[in-house]
């Protein structure tokens, strides 16, 4: 295909860059292509004609029908939403803290979600495994607990942020808080049975596949509302590019900007973690990829860009984790690390695009 080659060539040489409009077009096309690819590829190989039949509700095989509609579709939508959510919150964190390695989880929100879950499990009695293996009521309360955990951390961080002037201080506080909470979770896990530990370990691998349509009915509105709040942070984030003093001189209320940013990040990162487990690298790599591709730090361009590329990268990770054709699967986090890591390295090493130190 000529188009991807062209993109790569332009990216590398920096000359004859395609205009932004062309770039948007190519990315949208790629996303659609990936969507269709994810739909047609899986551990069960379904011929294309059959897939098309099923899409038009003409298929005869009920099992295949279910595979497409109830297994692949929800997983694809989850990947799209999660990829977009994590990338947007990663972008926000990188700008707010002026740190190239910041990501959605720097505020310890993810740790809060994990702690919430761990506490619920202990509260309902010993012997119940940590995640994915619990009974009826515990399942519902697991989701609530993780959102509550994330929200609690959010509230603490928010109140700290009112008192702390400097964003760097806030970043450090968030990181340390996250570490403390994580170590609490470690202690809880340490005293658990091997089966419980295995469950927790599996949770840390991350997965888009556990989300069914009914769970998506909760996840999608959560992410969409998070994205809408994030939309209101685009202008403040642009002001913050020059630093807090300039931002204030341009009329930005730091307090309310921080509040909006932290709130949207918490909702976005917290709900993705609650449903899919902790998924790393996407939130850090995608903003860099977008800055490099569009050669700007303007959030009016980056916001839609990370939505598209984040969704696309998440889909690519999901397709790759599938090991198409085989029945084996790989943990999602391993794939996002393999894909995201080199991207970050590559972007940082390209000197022409000076990244925050």
């Amino acid at each position: 295909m000529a188009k991807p080659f062209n993109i790569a060539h332009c990216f590398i040489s920096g000359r004859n860059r395609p205009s932004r409009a062309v770039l948007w077009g190519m990315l949208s096309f790629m996303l659609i292509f990936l969507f269709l690819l994810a739909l047609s590829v899986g551990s069960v190989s379904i011929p294309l004609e059959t897939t098309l039949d099923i899409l038009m509700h003409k298929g005869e095989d009920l099992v295949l029908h279910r595979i497409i509609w109830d297994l692949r579709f929800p997983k694809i939508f989850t990947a799209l939403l999660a990829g977009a959510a994590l990338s947007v919150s990663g972008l926000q964190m990188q700008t707010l803290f002026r740190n190239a390695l910041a990501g959605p989880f720097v505020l310890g929100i993810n740790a809060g979600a994990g702690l919430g879950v761990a506490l619920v499990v202990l509260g309902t009695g010993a012997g119940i495994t940590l995640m994915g293996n619990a009974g009826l009521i515990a399942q519902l309360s697991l989701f609530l607990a993780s959102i509550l955990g994330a929200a609690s951390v959010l509230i603490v961080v928010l109140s700290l942020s009112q008192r702390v002037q400097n964003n760097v201080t806030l970043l450090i506080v968030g990181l340390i808080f996250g570490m403390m909470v994580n170590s609490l979770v470690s202690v809880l896990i340490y005293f658990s049975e091997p089966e419980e530990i295995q469950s927790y370990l599996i949770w840390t691998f991350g997965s888009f596949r556990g989300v069914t349509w009914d769970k998506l009915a909760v996840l999608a509105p959560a992410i969409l509302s998070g994205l809408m709040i994030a939309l209101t942070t685009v202008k403040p984030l642009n002001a913050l590019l020059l630093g807090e003093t300039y931002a204030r001189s341009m009329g930005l209320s730091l307090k309310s900007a921080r509040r909006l940013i932290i709130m949207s990040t918490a909702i976005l990162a917290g709900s993705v973690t609650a449903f899919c487990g902790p998924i790393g690298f996407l939130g850090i790599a995608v903003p860099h990829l977008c800055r490099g591709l569009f050669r700007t730090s303007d959030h009016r361009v980056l916001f839609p860009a990370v939505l598209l590329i984040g969704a696309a990268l998440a889909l690519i990770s999901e397709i790759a984790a599938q090991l198409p054709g085989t029945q084996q699967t790989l943990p999602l986090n391993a794939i996002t690390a393999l894909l995201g890591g080199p991207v970050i390295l590559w972007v940082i090493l390209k000197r022409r695009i000076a990244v925050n130190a």
Partner: protein
Amino acid sequence: MRKSKLSASSLSIGYLQPPSVLAQDLNLDLYGGELVCLLGPNGAGKSTLMRTLCGLQGLLQGSIEIMGRCLSGLSPKERASCFAVVLTERLQLGPFSVRDLVCLGRHPHTTGFGRLRPRDEAVIEWAMQCTDIAAIQARHVNELSDGQRQRVMIARALAQETPLLFLDEPTAFLDLSGRIEVAKLLKHLARNTRKAVLMSTHDLDLALSVADRIWLMGGQGAFQTGAPEDMVLTKAFEAVFCGKDILFDRMRGSFKARQAFSGVIALKGDGLRRFWTAHALEREGFKIIPQEGRQEPCVEVLEDGAGWTSRFRGRHQKHASIYDLVTAIRALKEDRDLSRENGGDI
């Protein structure tokens, strides 16, 4: 009766934590169309004063009024429509084009997503024209020279369309031509846009040459204001800067190191050549005395650029350049000193 854009009365500035008062009971005004230079040694409170005046820092006592309204009563957005700043902070940006950066200046005037309307575009164009950066608007900020970047930041501040413009040491890090460019630009802006421009600087020469008014902050809360020439004549600079090693030359309007004179010398000549010959001899430690007849030591400036002659310690020499002249005299002086040490005498 001119109306000031900014008026401060009984202003005290400083910090609460740890408590320190840098200056108190200040009464200041900024008028449109004027370029004010804020001078003073480090630590005197220049940055604090600027930050307090534009609302980035709280005042300890007194009041500040912006065009009749109290500063503390303004919302952040209203404040942003009054003041635009250019700071010395190094920018840490990813890839960002010059034009996009100038567009940021429209922040207080745009809504929601930050979409630019025709009026915004017009102001941005105007700002780029003023600062002569329209040609480089597509380039990335990180690729610019310091001077260019400074102009871009000024353009951004212009795009913010405020009656008051504050610049914190805008000529630091710039080379000579850069400094002059910026100073000229600011003067031009003050005049043509009727903005009140306040800039702090260490560059006394520049301040003397472009400022309409000078605010001079000495340490311990001392504050004086006036036209640059007024300040010279009232010995204001000496009071603030001079010490036992620093002198202020009121003729030339510059500082120099105080020197101990080690001898006298007579000088004959006129004009520019005489001026600079005297400069070199003073640098060498000689006090110039008026020439009376033939005396030693003395230096004569020859006409038509034929050179110099000197009579020093009995040696009568001719020199082609000031450097030769001074070096020869120095050599003789040192010989004499050496021989004195060795016990010889003349």
